[in-house]
């Protein structure tokens, strides 16, 4: 099974019954599988005229009460940003898949990259909360797709599921869990009468219940800054309170949202930070280095945003060096640097459209241990390997 097919299957298992999308390599197979499978379970597949419309449609479907998905890649992810911000502001749960390819612009449509991790955080304008997940194998892809829907429903916010061309188009053995093993979370509905419903209540809880359309609750949905009823306001206190609550939905629940993997870090003299497809290269490199007697461990964020900074600091602070391996010019390395103060950081970055060869990691680690990589006081960026 390909990574893209796994996302489609898992989305349906998570209760997704609405897909709106627009063809774009390397994500199109998600749409193709959804077009085949959704009608069989009473769902709706719509191919829209562009990515802007696709994002608009899933917001509409979610307000209507359906779990909704769209999938795209770089250029399409750029087009989705305006509506993504709307979904954050209007608190509309939905899942957006970005199967990353080389950028900027049309870039390398058929080749993998990890250049959109910062766009996933800050692609739309203004302060906004965001959750982004990025698995590294296809069984995990299944679980994280389900979790993406659960987090979207639980926190009433869009969730970005990151993948890359490598994961999207590769095939490997996937363990598909039985439906009974899955926890499925649905949005909490209001338990008050329609005339007492406050869709954006700031006082009582971080995530107010969400009334679906067609269920008798009438409320105002807008991208304008609004008060607890949903109607626009420019009242400074209300504006500040709403935005603070939006951000707190994610930051105050970060422990529930963040997942990461630590492998072999306890005795590691060298730590590697990697995620997504690059983590697969890192794993192979670690196996080779360990076989040669060099103690190397992996820290792999599965939740990219919010960033599991405290866990990273705790896990790698005893290491002699931290290697950050990513298929971009150095994006998450800055985030790593914000937390790590006392461990030298070495970046291994590649933007050629080719996956990182484990040998390239092995070589850099060996050169470092042999003293060939001279570190300035803080960090060095090795922009190509």
């Amino acid at each position, binding site marked *: 099974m390909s990574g893209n097919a796994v996302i489609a299957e898992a989305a349906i298992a998570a209760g997704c019954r609405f897909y709106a999308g*627009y*063809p*774009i*390599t390397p994500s*199109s*197979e998600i*749409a*193709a599988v959804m*077009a*085949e499978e959704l*009608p*069989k379970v009473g769902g709706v*597949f719509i*191919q829209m*005229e*562009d*990515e802007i419309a696709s994002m608009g449609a899933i917001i509409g479907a979610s307000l209507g009460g359906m779990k909704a998905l769209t999938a795209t890649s770089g*250029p399409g992810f750029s087009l989705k940003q305006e509506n993504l911000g709307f979904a954050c502001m209007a608190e509309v749960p939905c899942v957006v898949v970005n199967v990353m390819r080389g950028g900027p*612009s*049309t870039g390398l*449509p058929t080749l993998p990259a990890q250049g959109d991790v910062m766009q996933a955080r800050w692609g739309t304008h203004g302060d906004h909360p965001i959750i982004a997940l990025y698995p590294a194998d296809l069984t995990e892809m299944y679980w994280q797709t389900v979790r993406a829907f659960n987090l979207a429903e639980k926190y009433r916010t869009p969730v970005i599921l990151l993948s890359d061309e490598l994961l999207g188009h590769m095939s490997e053995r996937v363990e598909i869990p039985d439906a009974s093993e899955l926890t499925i979370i649905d949005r909490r509905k209001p338990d008050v009468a329609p005339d007492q419903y406050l869709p954006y209540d700031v006082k009582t809880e971080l995530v107010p219940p969400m009334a679906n359309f067609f269920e008798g609750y009438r409320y105002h949905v807008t991208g304008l800054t609004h008060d607890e009823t949903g109607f626009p306001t420019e009242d400074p206190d209300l504006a500040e309170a709403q935005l603070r609550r939006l951000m707190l939905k994610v930051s105050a629940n970060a422990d529930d949202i963040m997942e990461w993997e630590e492998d072999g870090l306890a005795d590691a003299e060298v730590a590697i930070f990697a995620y997504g497809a690059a983590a697969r290269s890192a794993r192979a490199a670690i196996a080779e280095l360990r076989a040669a007697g060099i103690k190397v461990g992996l820290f792999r964020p599965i939740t990219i945003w919010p960033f599991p900074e405290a866990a990273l600091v705790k896990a790698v602070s005893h290491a002699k060096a931290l290697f950050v391996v990513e298929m971009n010019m150095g994006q998450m390395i800055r985030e790593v640097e914000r937390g790590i103060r006392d461990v030298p950081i070495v970046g291994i970055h590649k933007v050629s459209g080719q996956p990182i060869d484990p040998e390239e990691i092995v070589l850099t680690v060996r050169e470092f241990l042999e003293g060939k990589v001279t570190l300035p006081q803080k960090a060095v960026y090795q922009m190509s390997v």
Partner: protein
Amino acid sequence: MVAPGHRLCTGCGAGVIIRQMLMSTDYPIVVSNATGCVEVCTSVYPYTAWRVPWIHNGFENAAATISGVEAAYKSMKRRGDLPARKNDKPIKFIALGGDGGTYDIGLQSLSGALERGHDFLYICYDNGAYMNTGIQRSSASPFGANTTTSPAGVMIQGKQEERKDLTAIAAAHNIPYVATASPGYYMDFTRKVSKALEAKGPAFINVLSVCPLGWKSEPEESQVLARLGVETCFWPLFEIENGKFRLTFRPNVKKPVVEYLKRQGRFGHLFKAGNEHMLAHIQQRVDEEWGRLLEREKK
């Protein structure tokens, strides 16, 4: 002006279209190209098939990009900022897009450019789906076509919606020149391109583009299909010049549309028992549209 060795598929209609398009004129041409098969296959690093200046921007903005080039050219010309050239003919501008980049995502920028009145020609090569990304339906896909996002199976028998009438939308902008064409009738097509480039203001030509990959047709039959599309009146040839409508081809004998459909695997399911009504529906739509065009010409 299109070099051999591009990577378009054997039997691709778009390759023939761009060659005929550039053969039609002696003017220096600048082409802007939307994302799509032609863009990908004519510009594989480190080569280009284009012997004219060529710009690829995004999927949705070929018309917007050429708007900028044309406006800059006009402005520089007015100010006397243009360097002297050997060929003193004015430069002409062509924007090129497939049906995805024109009917769907690029419709907004096309409409804007037509309305603002830029002096350029937009050519849409319409192969009726997103062939480049894996044969997804577009709003140009004909009724009944099997695509990966309108799959013929148990639930539906291919695309359930009718094709968008993009040529009529372009004409509704009341621009000087609008036409349909097919590379199967190349004299007609090249004449239309020259005419469109002479028009003062925007022009639009919608061209039938055979796609053996997506249509599941035989590559050696591409020109046959490009002609059959016209001869069955599935793709009638006409032009609207300053509001005056004229059919540029009338078949002596109008062939049944199944002659066109049966050579394409994407319509294969329509020939299964139980789907006769879909074939009848397509024929009926073709007849109605052809009838309307005949009436329109009389006016």
